[in-house]
Every structure is written in structure tokens, then in C-alpha cells.
């Protein structure tokens, strides 16, 4: 809690309108780059008509208080005639894509009773099945956005007990997976951003920030462009972001690590050391730690602390010895011990060690721009120039004062896109990006590369508080144990993240950050060593449509048809709830009530200079027989005998704010009586009061009515908290870069555990645990997959990629006519983008129907000829191919998702795959 005497609270009064109409403040959190704060105009007949920015939010919002295009779809969303208009039950027991579910309307009472009865049956026989997996599973949509809409449902989940939240619907193959895991490990960067307001040079490898960064991202980057930032966009097709960049480098897909390695090579081998931030490397990274002959740190024999070579006194000393001048390069003798996996002593006595930085220099020697040029299809001189520009722009040595603290000023950043950070090559890319920042001291400081949120460490809403002292002078990290005593041989859920992916941790988000396709892929063929993967007895779905959004969508659709009891919170019919047994229409955005945290530092570009809360409130009565999610959750809790636990979870803060608290001398307690059924108004009134109290140290206790009138309430968030460097320095901690001794050890131990259990099918993935990552022929992995699918690589010469559509990404808004209409103004929303010359060579003209195929599947699309794409690349924007969703099923737009094979060989060590595939192309009409 901040010192309130210095905090100026900001109130945001609602504007009043002419008689007869009124505006209500609310928020849109349809995508992870939200929330956007808006007002909705409602006419004298109680009809919502217009969305506008909440102009009162302009002083505190990092995007000028503006509202993304997706929010303008909310009015149509409300009145869409295709909504599920009442609870429904399935009458056709046969499930399949070709089966009409025969949904018929039922009462809410019947719907909730049916679900509760099923849950009570499950509960009576035990929460886990014969494999030890939870019998109840849930799948929620993109990036945690459902939590901003599901009211108090998290309290029901908490009250229930074990649930399997690891059935993927996009995670791993449609997210920034390596960035999430490694980013959080290295710098509490579950999501990573340039410090855009201060950055002058941004190398963006496929980061489509103009489409995925939301209002704050667009606003800030536009400001940055006007003040002269140079953004170099490195990607196979000229995205929206590429269009707004100073330079486009059309790189060959999946070769980004080679490009980034070449930049590191130039900095290490073509410039004087003084060009780097030597002080930062010596004192704030693992660079000086001595590495022994077996690749592990040399340690002090007594304290087990890693040793560095003190050049001042010419002796090896523990890394945290005061007043030393640690060497970065050379070879040194030291009295030491080298400890390997499972605490095994690999050497002891007089050992030879090299600083980790020296190892890095040697490791990167071969990765010259000339070497990378042949891999990336980018000229060596281009890479060399970019490296030099980056180094020049870094301004090593400069400092700037922020909130009274003097910090490094390093206005350079490298940002990475989705397909760069997931699947094979993701680790190498993320490592190279973070090392590029560390070499010039630009990691977690002004102008540089920032982590903006944590999800695997706790607390989730405050990344600085998640920094704790760990081993060897680094931050602690909740790695899943790999030692013999504690390694989890019995997975707690089907995707086995705790057993297979140490970096996923074991917090509330970890289930969704494991290999979420395992839950699907292993249903019929569970590999050796894992308990047989089973169908969940009950599957809850909300704001997710894995039958469209995951990989191998045809394959998982067939599997869904076997799920025995599916409960879908449903807006319209769709391709996944086609297999549901019960449809529950929840009140949508403009009909429902919830308070969420805003500001501080959150996903992507959502780092603000304010923090607080915003209310989503019903602006009109439900347009159909829908119920607020909170009321549904309360009913389910009551009908399953979980009411007391449910209310207790709300009191504890599971829905976002603890109802009892104290800070700055103030105390408050708005706890609910746990024995009663509370209305949504009662629940959110208590939450509102607790939020007001939390913001003001108990001085204010505004209830729901106040929040409905004002919409939001904030207080300043110090800009210095955007940066982690000061916190690490205060705690005497170092960034764990560039050398990855801990991960190497973890990988070795994991390998031993798996082999002890006769599990050899993860050996390829184990190779990813390296101290310093090496280039591998990543593109070849996808060419080899063609062979596994029964084809010849040369017959599938194109890369098929996807790219975010700002109008649709994360929005669940594919059924909105207006969104479709405006999105069509952007190329690629009505067909497959291909290079005009490549098309001409194949006799393909604009608008021709083409077939895109793998050896196993094919789709058809209209040809959209563009210049801004490599000749060997095709692009299918967004994720379409709907066959059940009303309105969207008429689009005639395919998706790459049905072509991307779900494949263990294409799964990396973090459990993710990349969303690209090799395909053929031919004209069919």
C-alpha cells in the first residue's frame, strides 16, 4: 500500500445528457489489451444506441481514454437476434458435427437443477477419477479475459476443489508461450513490452503491436512515431504494424533466432566491450559467474555460493563479496566445487572456470550476419546495420530520474511476436531478445524491454511484490520440483504440466500454461508413464471455442463429441457448444455487473500511471432470458451445497478484492454472511466498498450506487514501478542472464526422473534445456512434419501463417455484422493473402479460388494478391472457418487451424507449438 499522504485520488464524474437519454459508464475487456473505458448512450425507451469513449477517463488512461473498435460491436452484441435466448438442453443424445443437437428451451430452474444434479453425482463419488484426474474440467478463453466477465464464478470454482483447467483452446499454439514462461523467469515478464513512451529504437520480430496492443499500444506507438522512434519490423509479411514501421525486413519464417543471434554476434565481436553496459553485466547479471568444466557454476566449497573472479584482488570470491571488480572474460583457477543435477558433486578442489560472459562470447562467435544471412534470407549488411543502430541508440552510460530515483536510460528494445515466441525456436528467440537488452543494460529500465505482468508468480496484481530472493543471487521462481523426492510422478491434471514443464509453476494460471494440447492428444493414446488420459465427466465452457481456435480443429472436434456432459455458457450457438448438453445464456457485456482492477502494470502495453478499479454495469435490461454470471454462480453454489465455501472465497478476495482488510491505519470488513444466498447487487456492493477502502486506506467506502454513477476510481501509480531494475538492486539480486545454469540443471534432473519412469518420449524436448542456446534448423522441423503426414516436403513449398486482426482478436465477436463490415476494409479478411508475383507465376489472379493443402487436409479461399508478403508465404488472417456460429458461418473464410497438425515432434520443451504449417497452393476456380 502506498503512502496515502502523497496520493492524489482521481474521481471521474459521469456526464449527464439531455432529458430522455442518458449515458452510463462501463468497460470493455474483450481482449487482453483492455480494459477500455466507455460510455453507452441509452435512449428514453431504454435502448442502448451508441458507444463512446469515457472522456472522463482521459487524464488517467494511457491511451487517451479511447475505445478500441471491438467495443463498438457491443450494441449489436446485445441485440443480436442470433443469441441463445433462454437456457437450452440437448435432446439428441448422439453428438457429432453432423448431428443436430436438438436444443430446446428450458427454464433456468431446470437448467440449474440439471447441472447441479450432475455435479452432486460427481461429488458423491469423489472429485478425482481412476487416473487421478479431476472429473470436472473447465475451459476459458483468451488470456484471462473471461475473468473480467465471469463475476463471482471463480469463487464457485474455488469452492468446488480440484478442476482440470488444462484442456487447451488456444494456449500454447496461439499465445506467446516461451515469452510467458521464460519472460517471467528472467524478469517477471509474463508479457513483455518496449517501454514505448521512452523507447527510440525498437526491433520488432513479428510483434504485431498495432493489432494486439490495444488502445494503449496504438496511442503510444503513434506518439513514439511522431517523436521519431525507429521501429524495424522483421516478419514474413507486412502486417499492420509493419505498415506503421520505419523499415520492413521480410525474414523467412521461424528463422528469427538466427537473426537475433547475428545481432548479438555483432555486439560482442565487432565492437569494443565499452560499448556494452559493462557495469550492469558485472554487477546485475550472472555474466561474471565462473562456469566449471561440466557447465555448472564453480561454487565456494563452504557456502555453495557461485564464485566470480575478482580482478582487483586476483582471486575467486563469492559473487556477493563487497567491493570487487568481477572479471567477465578469461580463464581462472579456483578452489571450488562444481555441483550438477541432483546435488551431485562433479568436481572439487582446484578447478578451472571461465566467466559466463566469456562463454557467451565464444558461443556466439560462429553466429555472424554472414552465417545468418543464408538462413534468414536477410542481407548480412542489413543485420549488421540494425545491430549497430541498436547499439548506437542504447546510449550506454546515460541515466534519467524517475520519481526521485536515478535509473539507466536505455531507449532500445526488442519485441517478439506470437509465432516467434511459441513452439521450437521460442526459447532461443526469447533468450536472445533478453540478452540483447541485458548487454546494454536495457532490461527493465527506462526506454528498454519491460515485463508488464506476472501470472505464474504471486501476487498476480503486483509484479514487484513477486520478487523474492532465490538461489545464487537470483530471483526465486516457483519451478515445479525435479528432484527425486519431490518430482510429480502423478500429474494433477491431464496435461501433466507439473510433471513435464518445470517452468510452468503450480499457481492458478499454471494449468493453462502447460502443454494444453496433451489433454486432447493423449485422450486415445496416453504415452508411457502418465496415467491414462480420461474424458472429464463434466466440462464447463466460457468465452472459448476450441473447435475453431485450437490446432488440428477437426481432430479435437471429433474428440469433443465424446465428452459425456458439457455445460456451455453460451452467447450464440457455436462450433464447441454444438456438443453441449446444457446451454446457459449469461448476461453479456452491457447487461451484467462486475468490478475489476485497472491500471498499474498489466498485459502488454497496459502499464499506467494510475491504478484503481472500474465497474461494468448493466446499461439495459437483458435482451433475452439471460442471467448475470454472479447469480448463476451463486445458484450453482447453493444447489451443490457449497454456499458457505463460495461466500468464504468471495470474502477472501477470489473475485478480485478481499472484503476485509487494513492499510495505512484504516481497517474495513464488508464480509458477507457465508450462510446466506446473496444477490449480485449485495455481492458487488460489498466488493465496491472494499475496493474503495483499499484505494483510500479505509477513508472511503463507496458502495455500488457510487460506482455506477462514477464508473471508475483511480489513484496514481508511480512510473518507477514500471521498471524492475530498482527493485532487484534494492534486494541485491541479479538478472539470471545470459547463462542458464539453473535451467540446465532442471532439464538434466527432469530427464533423469522421466527415464527412471521409462518415459523416453520427451527426450527431444529435454535438449532445449541449454546453458546457452544453439541454433537448430527450426524451419526443417516443419518440413519434416510434412513427411510424417505422408507427403514430400518439396510438394508443400509454402509457409502458411496467420496474423491478428485487431477487429476480431480475442473478441468472440465474429457474429457481429458491424465488425465484419469494418474489418473487410483491411486486406486479408476476405481471403488468403499471397505474393502477387508468386500468384502470377501460378496463373492465380485476384479473387480466384485457391486450395491450400497439407497431405492431410485442405481449405479453400479467395486469392488476395499483395506485394507485402514473401513469395514463399501465405497468410490467413484471424481464425474463421465457422460452421455453426450464426452469421459467421456464411463468411466462406477458412482458417489455418484445421491444417496445423497437433504433433509431439512439433511441441517444444515448454509444451507449446507454433501456428504455422507447410502447405501447397493451387488454383481451383
Amino acid at each position: 500500500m502506498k503512502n496515502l499522504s502523497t496520493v492524489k485520488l482521481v474521481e471521474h464524474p459521469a456526464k449527464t445528457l439531455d432529458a430522455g437519454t442518458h449515458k452510463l459508464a462501463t468497460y470493455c475487456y474483450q481482449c487482453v489489451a483492455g480494459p477500455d473505458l466507455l460510455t453507452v448512450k441509452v435512449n428514453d425507451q431504454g435502448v442502448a444506441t451508441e458507444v463512446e469513449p469515457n472522456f472522463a477517463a482521459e487524464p488517467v488512461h494511457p491511451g487517451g481514454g479511447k475505445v478500441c473498435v471491438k467495443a463498438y460491436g457491443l450494441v449489436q452484441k446485445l441485440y443480436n437476434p442470433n443469441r441463445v435466448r433462454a437456457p437450452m438442453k440437448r435432446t439428441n443424445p448422439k453428438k457429432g458435427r453432423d448431428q443436430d443437437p436438438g436444443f430446446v428451451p428450458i427454464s433456468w430452474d431446470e437448467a440449474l437443477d440439471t447441472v447441479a444434479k450432475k455435479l452432486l453425482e460427481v461429488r458423491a463419488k469423489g472429485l478425482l477419477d481412476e487416473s487421478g484426474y479431476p472429473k470436472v474440467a473447465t475451459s476459458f478463453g483468451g488470456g484471462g479475459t473471461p475473468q473480467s466477465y465471469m463475476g463471482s464464478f471463480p469463487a464457485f470454482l474455488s469452492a468446488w476443489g480440484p478442476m482440470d483447467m488444462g484442456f487447451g483452446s488456444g494456449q500454447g499454439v496461439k499465445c506467446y508461450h516461451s515469452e510467458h514462461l521464460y519472460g517471467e523467469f528472467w524478469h517477471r515478464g509474463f508479457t513483455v513490452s518496449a517501454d514505448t513512451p521512452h523507447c527510440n529504437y525498437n526491433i520488432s520480430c513479428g510483434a504485431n503491436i498495432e493489432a494486439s496492443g490495444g488502445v494503449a499500444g496504438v496511442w503510444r506507438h503513434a506518439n513514439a512515431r511522431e517523436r521519431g522512434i525507429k521501429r524495424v519490423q522483421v516478419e514474413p509479411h507486412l502486417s499492420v504494424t509493419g505498415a506503421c514501421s520505419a523499415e520492413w525486413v521480410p525474414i523467412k519464417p521461424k528463422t528469427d533466432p538466427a537473426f537475433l543471434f547475428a545481432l548479438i554476434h555483432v555486439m560482442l565481436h565487432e565492437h569494443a566491450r565499452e560499448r556494452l553496459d559493462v557495469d550492469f553485466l558485472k554487477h546485475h547479471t550472472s555474466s561474471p559467474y565462473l562456469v566449471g568444466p561440466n557447465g555448472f557454476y564453480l561454487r565456494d566449497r563452504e557456502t555453495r555460493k557461485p564464485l566470480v573472479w575478482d580482478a582487483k584482488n586476483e582471486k575467486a570470491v563469492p559473487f556477493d563479496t563487497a567491493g570487487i571488480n568481477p572479471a567477465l572474460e578469461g580463464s581462472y583457477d579456483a578452489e571450488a566445487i562444481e555441483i550438477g543435477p541432483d546435488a551431485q558433486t562433479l568436481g572439487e578442489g582446484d578447478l578451472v572456470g571461465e566467466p559466463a560472459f566469456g562463454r557467451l562470447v565464444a558461443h556466439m562467435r560462429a553466429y555472424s550476419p554472414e552465417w545468418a544471412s543464408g538462413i534468414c534470407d536477410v542481407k548480412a549488411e542489413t543485420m549488421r546495420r540494425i545491430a549497430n543502430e541498436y547499439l548506437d541508440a542504447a546510449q550506454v552510460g546515460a541515466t534519467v530520474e524517475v520519481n526521485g530515483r536515478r535509473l539507466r536510460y536505455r531507449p532500445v528494445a526488442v519485441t517478439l511476436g506470437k509465432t516467434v515466441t511459441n513452439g521450437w525456436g521460442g526459447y532461443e528467440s526469447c533468450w536472445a531478445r533478453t540478452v540483447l537488452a541485458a548487454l546494454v543494460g536495457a532490461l527493465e529500465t527506462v526506454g528498454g524491454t519491460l515485463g508488464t505482468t506476472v501470472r505464474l508468480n504471486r501476487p498476480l496484481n503486483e509484479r514487484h511484490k513477486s520478487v523474492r530472493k532465490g538461489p545464487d543471487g537470483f530471483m526465486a521462481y516457483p519451478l515445479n520440483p525435479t528432484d527425486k523426492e519431490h518430482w510429480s510422478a502423478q500429474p494433477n491434471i491431464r496435461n501433466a504440466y507439473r510433471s513435464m514443464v518445470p517452468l510452468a509453476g503450480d499457481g492458478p494460471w499454471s494449468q493453462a500454461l502447460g502443454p494444453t494440447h496433451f489433454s486432447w492428444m493423449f485422450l486415445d493414446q496416453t504415452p508411457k508413464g502418465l496415467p491414462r488420459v480420461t474424458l472429464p465427466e463434466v466440462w464447463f465452457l466460457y468465452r472459448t471455442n476450441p473447435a475453431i481456435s485450437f490446432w488440428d480443429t477437426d481432430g479435437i472436434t471429433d474428440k469433443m463429441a465424446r465428452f459425456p456432459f458439457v455445460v456451455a455458457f453460451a452467447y450464440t450457438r457455436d462450433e464447441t457448444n454444438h456438443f453441449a448438453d446444457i446451454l446457459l445464456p449469461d448476461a453479456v457485456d452491457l447487461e451484467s455487473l462486475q468490478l475489476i482492477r485497472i491500471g498499474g502494470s498489466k498485459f502488454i502495453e497496459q502499464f499506467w500511471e494510475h491504478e484503481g478499479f472500474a465497474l461494468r454495469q448493466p446499461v439495459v435490461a437483458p435482451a433475452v432470458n439471460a442471467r448475470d454470471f454472479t447469480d448463476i454462480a451463486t445458484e450453482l453454489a447453493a444447489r451443490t451445497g457449497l454456499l458457505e465455501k463460495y461466500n468464504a472465497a468471495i470474502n477472501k478476495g477470489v473475485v478480485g478484492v478481499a472484503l476485509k482488510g487494513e492499510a495505512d491505519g484504516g481497517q474495513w470488513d464488508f464480509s458477507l454472511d457465508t450462510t446466506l444466498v446473496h444477490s449480485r447487487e449485495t455481492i458487488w456492493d460489498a466488493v465496491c466498498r472494499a475496493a474503495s477502502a483499499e484505494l483510500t486506506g479505509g477513508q472511503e467506502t463507496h458502495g455500488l450506487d457510487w460506482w455506477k454513477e462514477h464508473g471508475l476510481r483511480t489513484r496514481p501509480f508511480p512510473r518507477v514501478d514500471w521498471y524492475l531494475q530498482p527493485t532487484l538492486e534494492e534486494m541485491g539480486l541479479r538478472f539470471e542472464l545470459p547463462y542458464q545454469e539453473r535451467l540446465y540443471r532442471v532439464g538434466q534432473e527432469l530427464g533423469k526422473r522421466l527415464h527412471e519412469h521409462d518415459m523416453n518420449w520427451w527426450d527431444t524436448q529435454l535438449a532445449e534445456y541449454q546453458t546457452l542456446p544453439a541454433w537448430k534448423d527450426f524451419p526443417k522441423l516443419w518440413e519434416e512434419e510434412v513427411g510424417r503426414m505422408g507427403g514430400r516436403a518439396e510438394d508443400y513449398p509454402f509457409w502458411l501463417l496467420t496474423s491478428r486482426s485487431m477487429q476480431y482478436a480475442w473478441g468472440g465477436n465474429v457474429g457481429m455484422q458491424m465488425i465484419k463490415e469494418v474489418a473487410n476494409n483491411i486486406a486479408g479478411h476476405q481471403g488468403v493473402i499471397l505474393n502477387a508475383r508468386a500468384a502470377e507465376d501460378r496463373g492465380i489472379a485476384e479473387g480466384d479460388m485457391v486450395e491450400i493443402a497439407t497431405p492431410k487436409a485442405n481449405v479453400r479461399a479467395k486469392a488476395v494478391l499483395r506485394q507485402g508478403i514473401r513469395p514463399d508465404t501465405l497468410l490467413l488472417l484471424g481464425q474463421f472457418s465457422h460452421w455453426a456460429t450464426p452469421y459467421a458461418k456464411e463468411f466462406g473464410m477458412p482458417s489455418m487451424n484445421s491444417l496445423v497438425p497437433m504433433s509431439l515432434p512439433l511441441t517444444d520443451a515448454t509444451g507449446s507449438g507454433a501456428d504455422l504449417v507447410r502447405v501447397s497452393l493451387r488454383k481451383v476456380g
Partner: protein
Amino acid sequence: MTRWAMVADLRRCVGCQTCTAACKHTNATPPEVQWRRVLDMEVGEYPEVQRVFVPVGCMHCADPPCMHVCPSTATKQRADGIVTIDYDLCIGCAYCAVACPYQARYKTDAPSFAYGEGPIQSEAARFDDGRIGVATKCTFCSDRVDAGLEQGLTPGIDPQATPACVNSCIAKALHFGDAEDPASNVSQLLAENQFFRMHEELGTDPGFYYLWDKKAEGAA
């Protein structure tokens, strides 16, 4: 005198179509009628290619071809430069749509709605039969401008007096103001930046300016 003008900063526009959507909300235009929209254009050939997003709509020309061809005098020009259409006078001949070099005019011959034949509630609440069979186009949100001026507000500065597309722009690429007032926001932008107007060679004297770079130091 006042001449209301729009300025689009091409360095800032990302083609998000938020302005397109905001315009549709504010002006309740039917499907596929976009008084404001953003073009997605390419210039050059691979790999030397640039992609640019260009907001377009009625340019509120000082010498509007649409007005000259209008046989019913429905299209007029206000003293502040805003080109208007009087739906009561318009006979729907569409000469203006043909004459407009900016493809800014629309004519809807029958009611059309987002989801089939009937309107959804928000459409029904705002349906205007007077717009059927006549030419329509961007009004520079003249109702907001006029109402704002009556309240002593400054169009382009105060949101209540400013066109919806400008209010909504998430890149701050769109600006609105009085081009005749040297102290206005748009005059300042035009003084500080290099700009062009679309099809200026046609002599239409458009009231829509495109910024593309800062002026060189010392340039007039």
C-alpha cells in the same frame, strides 16, 4: 470566417477502423454505408513496398463537384465550408455520387439492417425513413458542431462539439478544427507539417488534409 477542416496524420493512422465504427454509431448508417472509412493501400513492389492507411470520406470541398451537378439544389454549402444534403430536396438521381471524385456518397434505395430484413432494437430506435432513396455522406457531424458552438464549446477540442470519428481515434490521427483560424489546432498542424490533399489537381479545394512528415527546419 470559419472553414471547418479535417486533418489525418498518416504517420499515426493504423487502419483500425475505430473511426469507421464510431461514425456508424453516431450517425446510425445502415450496413455497408461508411461515411468514414480507412483504405488499406500498398505502394511499390515486393520487397520495396509500403503499406499505408488512408482515412477517407467527404472532403467538404470548397468547390464541390457534387453541388454543381445537383439538379434539385439539395446539396449546398454552409458558410463554414460544410457541404450538406437536404434530404427533403434530394430526388435520388445520384449525379452527385458520380461526380464526387472521392467516392464519398452513398445511396440506399431500401431499408437494410445488420441481420436480415428486420431491424434490431438499436436500429429500430434510430431508423430514419428520410434517408432512403437519397444521397448521404459525412456531415462533419455538423449537429455536434452546431450544438457545441451553441454551448460555447470549441469543435475539435471539446468532445461534445467534435466529430465522432475524431473523438474515437485511438491513434490521435484525426483532427478537426477551423482552417481559417491561424491559432486553431488544425492550422498549427498544417503549419508544422508537410501535407497534401487528395486529388487537389481537380481544383476541388478539399477541406481534408493529410499530414505525412514534419516540415524541414526553417521551412515556411
